[in-house]
């Protein structure tokens, strides 16, 4: 076994030093009745050739499709440099940078990431990242409750992606947060309903999202003032790539910005690993969960970076910590930081411009087909939109898969609505081919 370097001689010498006669004797204190003493019912060890064969055959049985699906996960372009840099093992085989003197690489890319995310969200500070967008949103909810001290009610818009909503609801149930859903009206958050719920002055925070599940860009004018008048915090969840062009959470007046940053160069990889971001104001830094990197100097006066504000964290505060999280998504943080460095000011805007163009062209072309009508007429969208479909959506999608497409995502709890997304990776030819595929299906169905 190439991962175990011990020779037979080594083993004998080492056992002698330890004062035992066999490897089994190293477990002499373990009660006999607890010992397994059997062979594990697992396959035999495989060579690299065999591992490649077995896993390669599993890989081959998946289908790589041209994606017009979104619902929180987008098929964006990843510059070739990004995975190349992230695979450098000086980064990937290190751990949490406890020893700052030999971890400046990790600390510096996290500092750069924090700078970029704080700027994109329009907030003062960002933490060093969280597991994913759904758990970052749940943490934002708990942060609202912790900051409010004596309030435990949090409002959440029904326009959230249901996959995120389920995670937030689960955390709320166990953490004892009274999570109240704010209804949607014409596909957007009902601001009057928020106003009414705030009147009781018992709301710790309000969670809304941008663009919402249906792809609609919501208008949060006045929302922050409304929340703050009742001493509630406002948390806005934004799809990260959109931060490059849409009004930022900070510009809307939010206290917390959170969300999923998969759209910043991270492969879809069947749902993970991704990265959640969480940003806030200076005033709330001590309520913030997660790792945080700060700049300081070393004993020679050189600028350097270090994990800081650790007194919030579990290894010091135990049950009083702001969260149980002790992970920063290190390598995914590097993915995002290097993606944003390469795309820069112009590239991030261009990606959004082209995604916008592709989605709007697709929107126009699909609406020309007999099976689709607008679900939320006239609502502004970026790269994702929802249509009403008069045909069976599953059958329509099954047909498109045969032609090699993921034709949107069926909206949850809405039998006749389908959500399409497009990115800069979609070419005019691909849009054309999808439209033709669906047109053919319409014809087959007698439309």
């Amino acid at each position, binding site marked *: 076994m190439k991962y175990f370097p011990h020779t037979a001689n080594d083993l004998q010498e080492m056992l002698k*030093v330890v004062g035992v006669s066999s*490897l089994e004797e190293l477990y002499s204190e373990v009660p006999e009745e607890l010992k397994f003493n059997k062979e594990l019912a697992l396959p035999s060890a495989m060579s690299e050739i065999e591992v490649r064969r077995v896993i390669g055959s599993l890989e081959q049985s998946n289908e790589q499709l041209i994606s017009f699906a979104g619902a929180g996960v987008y098929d964006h372009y990843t510059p070739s440099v990004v995975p190349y840099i992230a695979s450098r093992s000086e980064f990937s085989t290190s751990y949490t940078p406890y020893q700052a003197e030999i971890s400046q690489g*990790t600390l510096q890319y996290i500092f750069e990431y924090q700078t970029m995310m704080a700027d994109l969200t329009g907030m003062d500070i960002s933490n060093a990242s969280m597991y994913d967008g759904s758990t970052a949103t749940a943490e934002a909810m708990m942060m609202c409750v912790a900051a409010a001290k004596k309030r435990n009610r949090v409002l959440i818009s029904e326009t959230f992606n249901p996959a995120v909503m389920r995670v937030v609801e689960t955390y709320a149930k166990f953490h004892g947060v009274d999570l109240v859903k704010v209804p949607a009206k014409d596909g957007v958050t009902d601001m009057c309903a928020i106003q009414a719920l705030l009147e009781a002055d018992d709301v710790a925070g309000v969670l809304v999202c941008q663009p919402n599940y249906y792809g609609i860009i919501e208008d949060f004018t006045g929302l922050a003032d409304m929340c703050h008048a009742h001493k509630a915090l406002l948390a806005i969840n934004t799809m990260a790539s959109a931060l490059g062009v849409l009004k930022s959470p900070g510009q809307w007046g939010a206290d917390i910005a959170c969300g999923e940053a998969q759209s910043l160069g991270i492969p879809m990889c069947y749902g993970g690993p991704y990265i959640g971001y969480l940003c806030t104001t200076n005033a709330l830094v001590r309520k913030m969960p997660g790792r945080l990197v700060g700049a300081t100097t070393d004993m020679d006066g050189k600028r350097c970076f270090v994990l800081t504000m650790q007194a919030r964290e579990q290894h010091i505060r135990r049950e009083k910590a702001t969260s149980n999280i002790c992970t920063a998504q290190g390598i995914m943080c590097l993915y995002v930081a290097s993606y944003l460095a390469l795309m820069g000011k112009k590239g991030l805007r261009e990606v959004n411009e082209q995604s916008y163009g592709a989605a709007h062209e697709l929107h126009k072309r699909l609406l020309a087909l007999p099976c689709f009508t607008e679900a939320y007429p006239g609502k502004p969208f970026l790269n994702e939109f929802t249509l009403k479909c008069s045909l069976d959506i599953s059958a329509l999608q099954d047909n498109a898969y045969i032609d090699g497409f993921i034709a949107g995502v069926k909206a949850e709890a809405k039998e006749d609505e389908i959500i399409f997304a497009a990115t800069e990776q979609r070419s005019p030819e691909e849009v054309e081919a999808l439209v033709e595929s669906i047109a053919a299906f319409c014809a087959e169905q007698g439309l």
Partner: protein
Amino acid sequence: MNNTYYGKLIFELSTPGCIGYSLPENQWSGHTLEDLPANLLREGETILPEVDELTAVRHYTNMSNNNFGVDTGFYPLGSCTMKYNPKINEEMASLPGFTALHPHQPEYTAQGALELYYNVQKSLSEIAGLHEFTLNPFAGAHGELTGLMVIRTYHEKRGDLKRTKIIVPDSAHGTNPASAAVCGLQIVEVKSTPDGTVDVEDLKPLLGDDIAGMMMTNPNTLGIFETKIPEIARLVHECGGLMYYDGANLNPMLGVCRPGDMGFDVMHINLHKTFSTPHGGGGPGSGPVGVRKGLEEYLPNPQVKRQEDGYFTLVNNPESLGSVSAFLGNFGIVIRAYAYLLSLGKEYIPMAGKLSVLNANYIKEHLKEYYKLPIDVLCKHEFVFDGLREEYGGDHHDPSHVTTLDVAKRLLDYGYHAPTIYFPLLFHEAMMIEPTETESKKTLDEFIDVMKKIALEARDQRELLKTAPHHTPVRRLDDVKAVKEPKFTYKTL
């Protein structure tokens, strides 16, 4: 190392007009962001840099030179199981038939991915001696939280609503009480005996009908096997609670002893520790949760099931505790763990644990003449020194004594990562060493020599240690300043 580049931030390398990306010409004439209502658009430019590709590549390459990983050198960071991360794992995880999968694509187009997930679930069940696993939790602490949610759900489904407390040993990882607090449980601490194991007499009076369960790490954070585990499990079960196994220290038990057989009902495993996936500077990890028969319905949604005809399907179980992840957790990490499981197979999985124990004891035996070993027993995968022995480091009560921090910093000069320091909290100068099984005798011998040399330096050249490290990219940092003059972004520098 390129010192010209060292220390520059990417923002300081920005040159207006440079680009580092390549995109096709915009072919969507007639559609522009300018058509959106102006009040929905971002005001002002972003801070993002403008750099060409080579500038960016050099920037990160030079940064990587300031970093230390398992591939760089010996990394005996206790409790973190910094074993070698095999490269075949990375190769398998980067196959496009995995990385290009959209989580919303239908099951029948992702059967290979689901089968892989299922196979890892089943392999972990066999290794843990438990009935069923979920791979959805993103990390160890997330697994703890999920496991505690299973325990609370179990009691609630039985209509037993008064079980709001969880017992946690004083030697536990900080995540245990923190996860319990996030899960809405109150923490009851049980003390350790002088030999470092759970004090059963202290435990007994804590047990009652308000106890949801007990969290344990075995071997515990001192690297000592809790031999009284059968009695502890019996007592907790008798009072109606469930036993939770913190799998952070599972590595030495592989194939020797299974948590399910020890009496545990729920556990998590850290794939990034025991199953060789990279730690990635802090993440992404993966924290699968396993349960004994009878609790599997409560595992988080979505659940991966295999039908009789061999078709794999995603199920949303109404009995479930809910969801802890939007999709199937960190699937890319699961692929890596699967490659490792296949590579080791039934023959070598048990060897990993035994060799990790041998390596730890070998170091301990060689160094206990130099470093204070408060509990001198056969350890498992790791052990804890309480600083230097007095004849080398001076009296612990003397403010000028050579501390564990000084030793740790000096180790960096010799090209080693430091052990975990100042944890567990049971000792003032804790130094927790975990070598793992992938280190050779030669590496251990060299490390032992250096540790002895440092002890002699502590005795004869104290100042050398007090001002260490001397040869690292930066020297000791001012962490007080980092908190008192907080600077978390480039803008505030």
